[in-house]
């Protein structure tokens, strides 16, 4: 038996994650994402190849046992409505509760952008999304689900979160058919944040691990250092009477920074106000309160006493506060100062060199955030008529969503699978990581390109019965071993004790239509009805005395 792994997306690239794995005749699709960079048919995985790989059937529903979505990023879920409603897949779809709650919002948002703004042809309608979501079966963490007679799946916490998008409820998925088992990681994070924990999984016996490798070569420094720099910059700014503007999206980073600042304010006994622009709190914290089980340990612990998302030092911002004197900290949407309220505030505050703007690690080209990060501009044109003189300080702060190369290695080492397949990364980095995994961990590793198939041999366990005599023989042998061992222990040096591998000799008998069994030599002979024949060999070695002597001398000197 083998595991066939067909990579339909995210092979040697980032985007449209989609891997179809065939284990023991069961076909599972992990993620069904779209590529944000393409606007043609390349944006979706080439689903037709699934049918090509399954010659026995012509429709997707019978070709695929189930679809599993790890989290609700568009590059992991974007093609799902297309696959179910347009391609006509009607089988089960699994995702975690938060993913199911948040996915329709993401899909609808993107559909609107696609159709309304770009004027593209509609790939699927809002109704399609709703119909698709109805087919979804939500799963809980560590809940084992029997998809059909052979296939078992289980979700583990992956801790992934991405600053600009709302990611909560990302999962790693374990799938098992018969004795063959594998894990698909999706995107995950091995370092905990203040509001989301680190990935958690058990040590499993795996044949295959399919892992993301976004940061295959990078090793990130400690998040503490980044936090410290951030707090230092903010504290310095407000203590000199400046205002701090933190442009942010509603979910994820805002909560993370807020927990950080709220804590710091409490400790340092600062009285300077922290504001949330209207709308941010209501929408944002709702999901977290709803889905508390998916957050970090600290949040869970404190949740019983007080809601950790009710910040003590945070209050609502009124539009009229913009021109108020005195220091303050303001969280405003949207994140990259691409317009809206954060732009409005930026225009007022950027002109003073006392003020500070904190930017995320990544800004899309064309936004003001991007302009601020590239070099140190003194003047920014907002449109033809207006421009802003930028005198304020800029602080860049990156909270990274993916695990780094250390994290990938740690997880791989912990899970110790027989084979590793890398997806969701760039080719040169993946090649580097493959070398590391093969040389340091001694596992075979692959990084197939899109539409390539990797076949992996699996272990197969067999039930074998043993005869009574065989077992008694083994026990006798073991008893003798133990006796020797006791002698070894009482002497001072006993290096060999743990190295013995209790060997037992027997003969494996596999007959047609009978269960295989192990038996002893004698029994075997009896079964065959023959006598024992023994053949003896007399070793005759040609040797010369002189050579032998020389060899002995050599041995001695070398020692």
């Amino acid at each position, binding site marked *: 038996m083998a595991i066939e792994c067909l990579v339909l997306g995210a092979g040697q690239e980032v985007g449209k994650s989609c891997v179809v794995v065939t284990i023991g005749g069961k076909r599972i699709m992990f993620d069904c994402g779209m590529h944000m960079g393409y606007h043609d048919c390349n944006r979706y995985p080439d689903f037709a190849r699934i049918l090509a790989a399954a010659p026995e059937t012509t429709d997707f529903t019978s070709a695929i046992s189930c679809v599993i979505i790890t989290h609700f990023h568009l590059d992991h879920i974007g093609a799902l409505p297309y696959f179910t409603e347009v391609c006509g897949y009607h089988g089960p779809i699994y995702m975690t509760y938060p993913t199911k709650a948040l996915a329709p919002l993401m899909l609808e948002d993107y559909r609107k952008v696609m159709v309304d703004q770009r004027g593209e042809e509609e790939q699927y309608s809002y109704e399609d999304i709703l119909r698709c979501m109805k087919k979804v079966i939500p799963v809980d963490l560590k809940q084992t689900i029997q998809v059909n007679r052979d296939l078992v799946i289980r979700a583990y916490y992956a801790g992934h979160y991405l600053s600009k998008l709302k990611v909560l409820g990302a999962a790693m998925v374990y799938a098992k058919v018969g004795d063959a088992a594998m894990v698909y990681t999706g995107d995950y994070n091995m*370092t905990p944040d203040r509001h989301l924990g680190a990935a958690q999984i058990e040590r499993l016996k795996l044949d295959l691990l399919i892992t993301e490798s976004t940061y295959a070569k990078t090793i990130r420094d400690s998040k503490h250092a980044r936090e410290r720099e951030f707090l230092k910059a903010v504290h310095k700014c407000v203590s000199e009477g400046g205002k701090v503007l933190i442009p942010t999206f509603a979910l994820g980073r805002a909560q993370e920074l807020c927990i950080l600042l709220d804590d710091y304010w409490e400790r340092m006994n600062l009285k300077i106000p922290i504001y949330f622009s209207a709308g941010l709190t209501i929408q944002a914290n709702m999901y977290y309160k709803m889905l508390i089980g998916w957050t970090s340990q600290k949040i869970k612990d404190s949740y019983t006493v007080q809601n950790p998302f009710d910040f003590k030092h945070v209050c609502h911002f009124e539009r009229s506060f913009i021109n108020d004197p005195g220091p303050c900290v303001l969280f405003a949407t949207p994140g990259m100062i691409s317009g809206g309220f954060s732009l409005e505030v930026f225009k007022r505050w950027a002109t003073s060199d006392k003020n500070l703007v904190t930017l995320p690690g990544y800004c899309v080209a064309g936004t003001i955030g991007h302009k601020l990060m590239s070099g140190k501009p003194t003047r920014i044109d907002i449109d033809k008529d207006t421009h802003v003189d930028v005198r304020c300080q800029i602080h860049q702060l990156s909270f990274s969503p993916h695990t780094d190369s250390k994290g990938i290695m740690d997880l791989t*080492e912990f899970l110790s699978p027989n084979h590793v397949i890398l997806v969701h990364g760039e080719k040169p980095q993946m090649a580097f990581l493959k070398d590391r995994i093969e040389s*340091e961990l001694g596992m075979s590793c692959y990084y197939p390109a899109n539409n390539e198939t990797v076949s992996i041999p699996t272990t197969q366990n067999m039930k074998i019965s043993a005869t009574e005599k065989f077992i008694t023989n083994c026990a006798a042998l073991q008893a003798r071993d133990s006796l020797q061992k006791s002698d070894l222990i009482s002497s001072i040096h006993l290096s060999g004790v743990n190295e013995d591998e209790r060997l037992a000799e027997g003969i494996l008998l596999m007959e047609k239509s009978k269960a295989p069994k192990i038996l002893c030599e004698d029994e075997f002979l009896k079964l065959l009805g023959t006598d024992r024949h023994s053949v003896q060999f007399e070793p005759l070695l040609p040797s010369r005395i002189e050579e032998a002597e020389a060899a002995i001398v050599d041995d001695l000197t070398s020692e």
Partner: protein
Amino acid sequence: MDGSLASSDPGPSFAKPPGSSGDSGPCASRSSGPGPEVEVRALVSMAGGLYPLARAEALRGLAAVVEKVGTSGGAVECCYGCAVELLRDEDQSIRLAAVRLIGLCAEKFAGREEVSGIGNGDQMDLIFLQLSSTARDMCMQVRIEAFNGLAKMQRVSEGVLLQSLSKKVIRTDTGSGSICKANKLPPKLIFPCAAGIFAHGIEDEFYQVRIAACKTLGALAKFSGQYAQKALDLLMDMMNDDTEAVRLQTLQTLFNMATYGYLSVQEKHMHMFLATLIDANAIVRNAARKILGLVNLPKLQMFRSALDGLITSLEKNPEEQDIYSILFSIGKNHGSFSANVAKHLAKEISTAPNGELILDKHRIQALLIVSISAPVSADKHKKLDIPSVIFSHAIPLLGRISSALGEDIIKDLSYLCHPSGMPFAEKGLMSGEGGRSEFWSVETMRGTHALIEKTRKETNCSDEVLIMGSMRLMLETVEETWAMRESCGIEEIRTILRTCKEEVKLIQLENSYAIGPTSLDILLEKLDTYVRRMKCCYTGLNRELEVQVLELVLLANLFRLSKFGVCSKLMLDKLHWIINQLDGLCADGSCEFSDFSNTVKQTFDANVIDGTLVVDICNFLKIFRLKPAKDFGMLNAASAVLQVLGNNSENPLPYICGLPVGVSFDISLSNISGHDRIWIRMNSGQSIQHAFLELSCFEGNDEVKSCSTVIPFYATPLACSFVLRVCLVIECPSGSICTHYEEHGGPRDSVVQLCDELNVYLVSTDTECKN
């Protein structure tokens, strides 16, 4: 044979008592019998079994055996090997037990190395790596246990340690590579498993793991300086942790490192330190200060920023008096930096317009303390000249800070009086009867005796130096004043000269103190107080004890005499009176005159010439022998309770400014006889008022008397509120020799406080109306 040998001789000195071993294993309790190797054999085979719970239990059993056996013998190796095999088990409880067992084995190995003296560094490194590889386990308990195990490691090589801090794999020859080759490790361990375990540990999701990682970081610092330095970077980051327990543990770790001298603070760390100094949590602040008091700051700038941080902290939390002692020890640790601070401060003092420099300001106080700490610093070989103006300014603060600094430093500080030339009112500092009121028990006399002996030695040399020094300073002051006469107003110069004159007078007076109170003066005064209390506050002393107490009084007075060699009429009168009393007590022969009293008496009879005594007092002190009393009889301590009902800071009594106010007291006295003279002492600010208590007004018997009475306080201040400190005192009869209070209306003799000072809160009616 071998077995019984091993069990009867469980290793010479490192064997733990059986009782201390863990009780989890079934074999742990069986200390006698077949010996450890049978247990080990059985448990090892169980550990290889099929069932996870049995495997885990077997490992726990092995741990119990390892704890029990000595360091010698192969059992430890055997257990270690077994644990290593199960380190990667699927079941987390087995991994947990395995990690724990490896930690124990490592301890045993280290103990063995200590005994034999032969270090096996490779083996230690190997164990370190094995434990490290579990520090990234997915199970929280395993991670904690791994860090706990790592903390106990001994003799780990630097390369491995450094690797554990950095996530990036360091490829060196001394690093993990060679070890792996040397020991033919399984391929899993070639993977540099120690990489960055601490970097991960301090970011862990669970605070318990973070605490364990933090402890281990500190514990390993002793092996390598380079490691300690890098570990400090990580620890600094942890001060921003969101859990308070972790922050406190971090500070504790830093404190330990500082205590052992592994902490070298750099400029980039100062920001975090200064932030913790103004933390909202008092425990955090306190811990941060303690560390700061120990570290060595390499740059003047850092020193100054540390001082600024402490001053800010002092301004925010003025109640935290231990900041003063931290300032002192920081100053002491950085002698030349403090000298620099002193120089700047002196400049500031001299340039400040008159009256502008307020000593109450925390900044000035703090800087003064740092400045005066310089001369006691370790780098005495460098000549640190502290401007004398610093000392003269520091003197008034002495009283306030001495309590914060503690006894040891006070002794150090006696040098202050030497270079300072300030006229100084003794009343402010005298402990006299104010403040403390611990009851003196007869049993502690031995302690006093030791104290007396010590003081005597110090006495002889110090007084001469003190007088000479102050005279010289005064002459200098006069000279300076002469030079100043053109620049300053004549009024000012006159004041200075007058002060000098008065001071000279003070020195000339035989029975007065040279300048300011020294530690010796304070001690003498304390001694006087205690002896007086013994004499007055205990009724039912038997004859023998009474004689002893009187001898002590005599001794205390002789000490005062010894200070100047010659004595006044007053002193002599007092001595005569005591000797006469002694005479009276021993007249009927029930008690014997001691050698000491005898000699003193004879000397006094013979040597008084023109009212002065010319004799070497030290001779007397040599003869003095304290006979420990055997029979104390029935001792009754005189005491009193003073109360003002319904008065506290929330409910003050009303008064009208400038008019007398009546305060009603509830007084109860115990063990006061009818002929004792009891006074009530009220004081507020500078004004002290005594009122005599007529004992006939009290109800009750000799043992307990009580009465409630209204006593007026006349000198109410012109303030919206004030605190009246009230206290009951008993007069000590000392013949007709008037010693202490010359003011009319007060007690004639010296007094002893009978109870703690009571605060009575009063508020002006004007303010009450306003509110």
